[in-house]
């Protein structure tokens, strides 16, 4: 593989999979508030 291709492969994985991990971690830090019981 050319250097350019390797760099783009690594960047794609870091940004997209990193984005997924970061957004999951961010969401887990903020659990949904409990329901109030008004209908």
């Amino acid at each position, binding site marked *: *593989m*050319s250097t*350019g*291709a*390797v*760099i*783009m*492969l690594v*960047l*794609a*994985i870091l*940004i*997209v*999979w990193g*984005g*997924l991990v970061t*957004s*999951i971690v*961010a*969401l887990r*830090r*903020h659990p*949904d*508030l*409990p*329901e*109030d019981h*008004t*209908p």
Partner: protein
Amino acid sequence: MQFDPEVAMTVEQQQREQWATRAGFLLAAIGSAIGLGNIWRFPYVAYENGGGAFLLPYLIALLTAGIPLLILEYTIGHRYRGSPPLAFRRMSRPAEAIGWWQVAICFIIAIYYAVIIAWAVRYTGFSFGLEWGDDPGTFFGEFLDLADEPGMVSSYVSAVAWPLIGIWVVTLGVLAFGVRRGIERANKIFIPLLVVLFGALVVRAVTLEGATLGLDALFSPDWSAITDGSVWVAAYGQIFFSLSVGFGIMITYASYLRRRADMTGSALVAGFANSSFEILAGIGVFAAVGFIATASGVAVADVATQGPGLAFVAFPTIISSLPATPELFGVLFFASLVIAGLSSLISIVEVVVSTVQDRWGMRRERAVLLIGGAAALVSLALFPTSEGLYILDAADHFINQYGVALAALVVVIVVGWLLRQLPSQRAHANSTSAVPLGRWWLVVLGVVTPVVLGWMMYDSLRQEFAENYEGYTTGFLLLAGWGVAIAAIVFGLAMSLFRWRAVDSEPAVGVEEGSR
């Protein structure tokens, strides 16, 4: 306007169903987004449009159109708590037509999408004996009993009909069990299973001889591509069609969220999860393509393709050429297609079922049996036939361009410009989400998305009139293409003309009311 709680109850029936957990909703939303397009469309689109350089327009499209649109659909569904027609009618009475249009689009997509999954089921079975032999192209044509010319139904293909019945039984069965026990539970099995099966396939693919040749072709950046307008259209188009936005699925799924649900955070997870799977699919598909190019001594460009040609012709060729355990690789690939397709099909049919429940106050089981059964019958009548592939191809192209994409354009124009609802939708999202939406969200949805979608529409109409899609006859396209897309619009407008008393007597839904 007087509020009559008894009448309003007929709309909501009892209490609206709810997801059991936030993870359950997310898995269902991700299952809906990850479909056949992730596996057989993304890798080729990226390869054709600049390779590694495509990443830049792709990520920009994800952040400026994909995720913002997801957030908008989540807030509409969550705030107005209904299937698309009900949600849009509660937003503004004339907007109800958009909702019905989206329901028609879902109905149409469901009836042909199911048949592709049925093919994949058969091919999972064929994998055990590599039954496609030396010439998978001819085999595929014989399997479908494909007619020489596109046209209307002439003969029936029972080899496709049986698995198709199975697909409908499973889909309607899952839907009949409801949001929690059906959709949520199914996706809790499907998504991890898909990741395991497809992950195993990718590991095998990248260890094949020649895999790096394919990956090099996919990821080598051609930076001149990013100054090409068509590459940007391709990036926005891929994000858009891959995320399942524009036809009401996310509105429907979000209507089952609890009152306090983090919509912005959920949209980020769903959007990135979908793209993560797409990257994984790109690696798996192009590693396999690199292997077959090396093995048969041709260039990657000669074997790279997309759509049914990739799945049912190129992949069988690759599978048969594998040095060891080709059967296992075949099963992994086709089973992945089945699972990815099923979780999307379930979400598409759910829009129609949920709408029937909302509109006619029907119990879920009854709605599934009636409208789901009707969809299954139409699907079974039209597609396991010699002309099925042609009808599917034309309907798919036209309903995507002048259904899904056009409806999304209409949504952003109506919600953003005519009803000027974006600021209140933003306030609604911010009232329950940890990450606040800034003004950028108003700008990307109010300006960037309409401009890009408008350009896509112009571009595709221009091509439509320059030459007939796939060289099909005008008569065939008027019926199976234009006719289908226009029928969905007419249906939407017609359904919105009827009185819907229970909704009209409700109090208006405000930000405070919707975000309790």
